[in-house]
């Protein structure tokens, strides 16, 4: 380097060329630059859309999010009633909470300015502290979410393959599929409230996700002695409220339960895995009328608590409606037998082919037992109430299913019409299809109004069953031998209900149509049969209202010694409610007898 560097001295002076240029300084506070469209500023929570699942709180690595009660927000089914509150003394605005929010209610906004001299003022309830944030959303989970909204599809038999036999349609998850499906669950537990039985769903799903299938089964058996049945045919109200279902397909809770029960291939292995604690016999006797889900549940858990339990069942097999009302392609007979066998091995005595009121009087059971539980169900079908209904070939779907499940043969010909839109109607239709008939379902309302499971409806359609919605049957046509040859029906239009209920079908005059058939099945509902107490002293003691036995919240009837559950008691008429009734009754009976 030379002693004097002329270039090096002069060159920096070229910086002067910047002189007079417009500065890029932001004239704060006069001008406030708006943050970018994706800026991760303060949180906003749409309180209406939020279901309080608490996933944001779980993912937060800074423990910044609390779930708190907020005035005016009550917990309901499918909503915990809690809402997130964010501690801005913890938050790092990573937006993971936004990414895992299943409903998409939580987002970030462009707001970022908050300065205060009060360090206690940094607790922030998004949505309440910034209601205007709704119009200022920036970072949302609309574009991208960390929730896995897509369910692992269940392997099934092909539609046309299915109708050839009574083989089980659903094939079940394999281990890998089950783990993957289980890991979609965010463990919020909203489902447990929707489940009548309050099964420990997040716990057993988590056990499956971590590969502890046996623990999963133990957790399931904690309050459900018929999990294999539930795993196959439950109405799964849990899945309706699944947090993931808000924007995606719910976690396949039923199929996961089914998967967990598959580890127990026999009643002995079930016992080995579940390894229940059976208390010493306490000498108290419980008589149970009906070996349906509620009776079996009450019996099982009472037996575990040391009671001497006897069940009286009029049929040759236990299971009630789950045995005789559900076709075997949905619920194979050996699967049920295994579970009944296990319950019997625990110590529950079941007297088969013993109809109460005929083979044994109710009075005898009542007097021999310390407590009686009635799980009698709804064995009798409602009739259609239209002309010509008693023609030959016109039958009730429940009776049809009962006879088929009993192994009998029923003449139905090759053209069957089923009236109704519930699961029984679909079951009867699909069974008829398997006997080679061409089946049509007539339903008063629209397809989306059908009370049957959507999977069942889809399954029926796959198997080539025609569904004629908005059809009101008016007359059964018979030939001179009294045999059914056709059904006449009217088409209906849906009229909105003035009182805000669901739309009503109203027949269109002159839209008469006739469908040619060889058999007709009615499936519009069932009712109870209380003939066993009719005319006895108990008729007055056990109060019955509108066909249902009246019970208090402990399943206790107006006679304190008699408890009841199942379809004859609750309005939901499904197996899981019956199990819940049985379990509740068991706890109440235990309490009642100890207190006595």
């Amino acid at each position, binding site marked *: *380097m030379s002693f004097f*560097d002329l*270039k*090096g*001295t002069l*060159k*920096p002076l*070229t*910086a002067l060329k*910047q002189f007079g240029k417009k500065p*890029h300084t932001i004239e704060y506070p006069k001008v406030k630059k708006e*943050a*970018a*469209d*994706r*800026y*991760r500023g303060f949180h906003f929570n749409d309180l209406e859309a939020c279901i309080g699942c608490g*996933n944001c709180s*779980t*993912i937060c*690595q800074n423990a910044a999010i609390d779930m708190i009660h907020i005035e005016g927000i009550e917990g309901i089914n499918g909503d915990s009633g809690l809402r997130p509150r964010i501690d801005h003394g913890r938050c*790092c*605005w*990573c*937006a*993971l909470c936004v990414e*895992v929010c299943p409903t998409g209610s939580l987002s*970030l906004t462009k707001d970022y300015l908050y300065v205060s001299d009060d360090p206690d003022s940094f607790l922030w309830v998004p949505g309440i502290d910034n209601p205007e944030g709704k119009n200022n959303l*920036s*970072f949302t989970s609309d*574009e*991208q979410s*960390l*929730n*896995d909204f897509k369910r692992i599809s269940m392997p099934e038999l092909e539609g046309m393959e299915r109708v050839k036999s009574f083989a089980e349609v659903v094939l079940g998850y394999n281990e890998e599929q089950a783990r*993957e499906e*289980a*890991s*979609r*669950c*965010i*463990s919020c537990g909203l489902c447990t409230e929707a489940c009548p039985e309050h099964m420990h769903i997040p716990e057993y799903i*988590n056990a499956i*996700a*971590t590969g502890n299938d046996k623990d999963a089964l133990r957790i399931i058996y904690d309050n459900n002695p018929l999990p294999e049945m539930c795993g196959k045919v439950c109405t799964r109200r849990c899945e309706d409220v699944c947090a993931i279902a808000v924007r995606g397909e719910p976690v396949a809770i039923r199929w996961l339960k089914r998967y967990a029960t598959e580890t127990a291939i026999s009643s002995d292995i079930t016992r080995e895995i579940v390894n229940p604690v059976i208390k010493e016999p306490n000498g108290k006797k419980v008589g149970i009328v009906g070996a349906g889900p509620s009776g079996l549940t009450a019996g099982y858990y009472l037996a575990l608590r040391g009671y001497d339990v006897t069940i009286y069942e009029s049929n040759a097999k236990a299971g009630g409606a789950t045995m005789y009302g559900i076709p075997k392609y949905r619920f194979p007979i050996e699967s049920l037998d295994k579970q009944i066998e296990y319950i019997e091995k625990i110590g529950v005595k079941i007297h088969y082919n013993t109809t109460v009121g005929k083979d044994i009087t109710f009075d005898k059971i009542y007097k021999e037992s310390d407590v009686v539980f009635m799980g009698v169900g709804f064995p009798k079908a409602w009739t259609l109430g239209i002309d010509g209904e008693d023609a030959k070939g016109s039958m009730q779907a429940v009776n049809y299913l009962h006879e088929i499940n009993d192994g009998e043969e029923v003449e139905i010909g090759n053209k069957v019409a089923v009236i109704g839109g519930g699961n029984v109607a679909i079951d009867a239709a699909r069974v008829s299809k398997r006997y080679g008939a061409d089946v049509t379902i007539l339903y008063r309302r629209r397809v989306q109004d059908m009370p049957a499971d959507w999977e069942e409806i889809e399954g029926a359609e796959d198997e080539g069953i025609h569904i004629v919605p908005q059809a009101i049957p008016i007359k059964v046509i018979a030939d001179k031998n009294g045999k059914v040859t056709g059904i006449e029906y009217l088409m209906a239009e849906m009229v909105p209900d003035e009182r805000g209920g669901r739309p009503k079908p109203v027949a269109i005059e002159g839209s008469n149509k006739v469908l040619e058939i060889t058999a007709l099945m009615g499936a519009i509902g069932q009712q109870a049969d209380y003939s066993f107490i009719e005319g006895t002293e108990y008729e007055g003691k056990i109060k019955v209202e509108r066909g249902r036995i009246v019970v208090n919240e402990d399943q206790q009837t107006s006679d304190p010694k008699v408890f009841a559950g199942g379809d004859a008691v609750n309005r939901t008429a499904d197996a899981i409610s019956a199990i819940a009734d049985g379990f509740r009754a068991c706890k109440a009976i235990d309490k009642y007898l100890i207190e006595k």
Partner: protein
Amino acid sequence: MREKATTLYLGPQHPGITGNMMIRLKVEGDTIVKATTEVGYLHRAFEKLQEQRNWLQSFTLMCRFCVPETDPMEESYARAVEAIEGREVPERAKYIRVMVLELARLASFMLWYGGQNGSLGLYTMGQWSVGDRNYILDLFEELTGGRVYHMYIWPGGVRRDLPKGFEKRVIKVLNYLEKRLDDYDDLMFDNAIFKKRTQGVGLVDKKTAIEHGVVGAVLRGCGIKSDIRIDDPYEIYDQLDFEVPTAEGGDIWARALVRRQEARQSIRIIRQVIDQMPGGAFYNQIPNPLKWTLPKGDAYVRTESVRGEIGLYLVSDGGNKPRRVHLRGAAYVHAVSLLEDVLIGENVADVSAIMNSLGTCPPEIER
């Protein structure tokens, strides 16, 4: 006659120190005879904390290791997780990652321009380059939602796709910066004072460099051509056309020359990436983060940051949390033992300039 030695404490509160650290200097006159670094003022125990967080939660901590350039850490973590899990990354994500990494390099160079010159009393440069750096941060804000902590590159790809018209805005900023880099040259590299104060100062020779495991621009300033992006390529660097500049001398001047070239190479890389940007997915989604487990295994990944190679060693024991995360930043190499050696014989007035040129970033040392 030798002057009597005195002890001088430089930092942690000292305007010339880059970041929060301290150097104990033994000086004779203003010549340093012994230097002892003392670090740990920023030890937050990241690696301990990450062992308590699950795999996704850990990711948010990564960018905080070193603030001037946060993306190489995120990139390292993402790549290490992907290596253990065997997760595929979509092609587009790789391109976006490289673009983000190079933009981050560019932003970091701008900060270095300001710091290096600020340490020599040339404050104009700081006003220019740190001011111009905001244009890059604006791009980051638009793309990632944050100016400094991007939390954008994560296992499986990147977090969000490019906004509409983003590439055009990047090109616009690059065009502007290219012009500005020439202005910087006039002010800095042609400046007699800058030359005088940097040439022959802060020498690192080849032997010392190897003894200390020196990396990045400091190593290239000793004339050794080494760059992880070429030597151990990741993402799509092996398909890009760029040069690795080197300079002889091993002094501050040489390192400055290297960085001057590298900034331009970064611009060149970003232009190529934007030209070749493929379409398609930008993210291969991870499973539910609360139940996400990785198979047993370990991975060691290296990423080139502005300060040099950073290495991340990640171990999984098959659970949902990392067993061990160990990040070794470039400053860990440069600013502890190397700095102690380099400072010997230098003037107290040059300490700040030397620290800047070695890429001292205390949070990266202390973690």
